């Protein structure tokens, strides 16, 4: 057996998986493409284990480990996808953009602070007491109320749309 054959087939499978990861929109299809890439790696491992005649069979044993890890990855990944679907009612990757950078960082940050801070304070001021230690963890700020706004203004653009959704929902509930 020429080793070129399995190597070329696994290279083609890997690039098909790359295309699937980049081009698909559904999260489950992206997971399937990741599985294709893992299988390409497995084919390479098996082929080179056969070629090198490894006495310890490290290639095939690593293939078994990769298969098991892929199964665990699919389990956790699907649990994450289902939690996402429960909270957002969608699994489209194009609509999940809360972690993206905003287009203009500074106006978005001030706007988010202005929208978010009143909604945070209105329902229950006693609930805010556990919050400042967390802010100090992320931003290294002392937990005084004056500096809290500054810390929020720094951290707000990352979770921008979600905060707006939350505050709107809490405002409408009572």
């Amino acid at each position: 057996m020429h080793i070129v054959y399995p190597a070329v087939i696994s290279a083609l499978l890997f690039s098909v998986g790359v295309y699937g990861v980049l081009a698909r929109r559904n999260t489950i299809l992206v997971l399937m493409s990741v599985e294709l890439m893992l299988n390409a790696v497995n084919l390479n491992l098996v082929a080179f284990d056969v070629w090198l005649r490894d006495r310890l069979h490290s290639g095939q044993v690593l293939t078994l480990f990769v298969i098991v890890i892929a199964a665990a990855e699919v389990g956790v990944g699907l649990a994450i996808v289902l939690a996402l679907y429960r909270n957002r009612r969608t699994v489209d990757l194009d609509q999940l953009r809360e972690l993206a950078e905003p287009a203009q960082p500074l106006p978005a940050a001030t706007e988010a602070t202005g929208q978010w801070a009143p909604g945070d304070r209105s329902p229950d001021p006693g609930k805010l007491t556990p919050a400042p230690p967390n802010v100090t963890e992320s931003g290294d700020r002392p937990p005084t109320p004056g500096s809290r706004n500054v810390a929020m203004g720094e951290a707000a653009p990352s979770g921008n749309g979600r905060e707006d959704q939350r505050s709107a929902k809490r405002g409408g509930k009572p």
Partner: protein
Amino acid sequence: MTEEVPSYLSPTGQEVVFLLMGAVAVGSALLVVTTRQLVHAALWLVVSFGALAGCYLVLTAEFVAWVQVLIYVGAVVVLMLFGIMLTRAPIGRSADLDSGNRVVAAGVALATAAILVTVVIDGFRTAYTPLTPGAGSASELGASVFSTWVLPFEALSVLLLAALIGAIVLSRTDIPGGPPADPPDPPDTSTSSQGDPADQSGSSPSDRSGGH
């Protein structure tokens, strides 16, 4: 291993079978990433994994082939189908399975394929090995797993347990959030990976009550 390389023009029967299996695997993988029906993608994935198991069989890795059939075809694809069902994906033909950057993705994939195939052909043109059966049987692999690779094996079992517990915790909705998860907003701003699962469990009841 560079001596007496047989010609590429007279392939043996094993190579012909392997190439046919590989063509089936790559073709069905292409259908997985291009089909317009979500369930058909999972079923083409079965075909691709089955053909790859055939490739492993030709490469004398029998145990890996059967593990591939059992775990990938038997478990992973079934999990995928469950995921498709539970997210209430459209069963029929749906037009929006591809995102907008399809052309860029095709370009990147073609470039990856070109680079990898060129390098691999250039590097392993003279690599040849005769296939001798029995090297990948269950007894050989079991002996090496339980003698040399025992420590990774045990670590892997712990990892599987952790993944199991993680999947259960992620999918349950009735776990009450702890005291730091109760005020939902400030842990979100830090976008740390710690705050996320607790935040989901804390926010889902309010989501439900808001929906009804």
